[in-house]
């Protein structure tokens, strides 16, 4: 065989090898990425979930059944912020006042969640 043919073959082999390796790994990585996103989405929607976080009562609206709470990060649902939460039953709001440090539990299918339990904490 002529040398130049051997060289062309060698380069082709290297190119194909590199391309095949890249495609194999690239496709694999992309598939894993897609699966991860799908798994996250499945975990985040359609399934009832429950979180327990700490916060401070900022406002109480008994007539609306809403508590405004400054809370910390709610894992995979929302970052730390001040917002209103529906309460599952009016009883939950009893005995609370603005400024109370609390640990509360929200349950529901995001974004429809409600406070199902709350207790004051002393620091």
């Amino acid at each position: 065989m002529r040398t130049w043919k051997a060289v062309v073959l060698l380069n082709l082999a290297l190119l194909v090898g590199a391309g095949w390796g890249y495609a194999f790994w690239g496709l694999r990585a992309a598939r894993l990425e897609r699966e991860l996103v799908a798994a996250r989405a499945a975990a985040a929607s359609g399934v009832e979930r429950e979180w327990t976080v700490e916060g401070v009562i900022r406002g109480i609206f008994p007539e609306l059944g809403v508590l405004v709470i400054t809370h910390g990060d709610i894992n995979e649902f929302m970052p730390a912020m001040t917002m209103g939460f529906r309460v599952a039953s009016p009883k939950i709001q009893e005995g609370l006042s603005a400024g109370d440090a609390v640990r509360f539990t929200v349950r529901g299918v995001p974004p429809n969640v409600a406070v199902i339990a709350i207790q004051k904490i002393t620091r």
Partner: protein
Amino acid sequence: MLALGLVARWIHLASSIFLVGGAVMIVMAGPSDRPTARRWERRMLAATRALAAVALASGLVVLSVQTALFEGRAGAALDLGAIARVVVETQAGHVWLVRFGLLVVLAAFLLLRLPVDQRVDWRAARGEGVLLGAAALVPIAAAGHAAAVEPGTARAIAVDALHVAAAGLWVGGLVPLAMLLRAAATPEGADARPYAVLAARRFSRVALATVALLAVTGALLATFHVGSVAGLVGTRYGRLLLAKLLLLALGLLLALINRSVLLPRLGGDGETVGRPAMRRLSGFVAAEACLALAILGLVAALGLTPPARHDAPVWPFAIRLSTAALEGASAEATRALIGSQIAVLGLAVLVAAAVLRSRMLPLGALGLVALGAGAGLALPPLTIDAYPTTYLRPSVPYQAASIASGAALYRENCVACHGPGGAGNGPAGLNLPRPPADLRAPHTAQHTAGDLYWWLTNGIPAAGMPGFGARLTDDQRWDLINFLRALSAGYAARNMGKAVEPDRRWLVAPDFAFAVGPTPPRSLKEYRGRVVLLVLYQLPESRARMSQIAGRDGTLSMLGVEVIAVPTDADRDAIRRLGEDPRVLFPVVTDGAEAIVSAYRLFAPAPHAEFLIDRQGYVRAIAKSRGQAEDMEPLLGHIQELNQERVSAEPPPDEHVH
């Protein structure tokens, strides 16, 4: 272990580079049927085979030393499991794998000794050597310091790859060229003389382009890894780089002589024409190659040294040059201006001298005199005293907590001489040889944080200031420096009013951490990109104003403003005490308030203060009051102004340390 790693890297780098250069030189010289040229080519091929073997062997040593350094134990160098982990799990390992694989293919290819009798086969075989060699060399850029440059990693790697490729072309071609010239300069090698001359001319042309490329990419890499004069002269990395540049300058001087004096004398094909020049050129090129080898050793050392940008520079001189020295000194500024213009004129005359060859001497002398005189006139006013720590970067960030502890340290250690307000009017300072410095004065801009650190640590003996190096820890001294920075900034901010001055950002809002109740701590920095209204209040005086702000909560959040309220009495029950009517929904700090109050009171010594902080983290307006209700409309107007302002490209304030 480190010495072994250095030597292995050196050998590996040099063999990889000479491999590429040798292959390129063969291609550049081209095929020939002269016996001496054929002999040279055979020797070069044998050398490339040997170099490939050396590169493979030293590559293994580099990997095993790298593993030992990663794992932090010498035993890991021979531990196959640890080596496999490094290869599979680190980027340097991946790069090593790719390069080593290509080197193996290259070595196998070189050992094949394919027939090259026809021209096209010769070109294919020799070209493949260049291709594989370059492919095995260039990825080295992705395993060095360039891979750690943030941001712009890809750009840094690309520049480094170009640098390495150009080095391979230039440095690697020197030894083969020297050997060819030497062979052709002997009486027996006369047949290859035209071939050698042609090769030398081709190499010279390519070398000129690659040296230009090396200079450009090298300068770019220096800005990535060094970035400042202090880094260049004050760190190990910088000094190694300077040594490299010195060797390079010597090499370029030789190259200049070769190109402009020796190369033109090579012409002719006879027995004796050009032979002495050829022998001398061969010697000079070999000397260049030796310098290049030394440079590669320095490069190997640079690869094992943390880049200057990530090192604390030690300033080696007693003075530094800065235009900050001219602030407030108009006569000096004029002098510096005139001097610099004379110097620029001198430079222009020097350029003219280089262009107009016929009047080179008088013009050159005139230019040099003008340059010297200009520098002599301009430089003295620009000098400022400097210390080894002048360019040391603070190890404690400019944050409220640090400023607060610095304030406490100041009260304990400094008040006696510098006075409670920092004006330099303390009772103990009256009898000192030099009056204590007014720490509020704006001239502190002339002093770097590192200068202050030096004075705090070692004192100023001539002025009677004691050193605190033994009494205060490193962090405490930086706390004090952060406090002094805030004190000086606060003095400068004493006239800042409620109105926003367009596009004047200078008062950095010190970062702080705070928590509302049991929620996890947050920091002011997280609010970058939004306008923040920071309110320092005290009850009951501020109640009217707080109710007013709470009442306009909807408008404020519509404008995108984040309100952060800080009680000056640092009360854990602060939210409860604000009451339920009107509802206060913005964050009220219950943890971390003391430090915020201590730091921000330096900017606004008032019972109730409101700071308007722009999207980039600068305080833009300060409203001081007793907490009474006031018209809200002007405040909303100023917020709107900040919202409409274009965000400038200035760096974020944290990097604003002098």
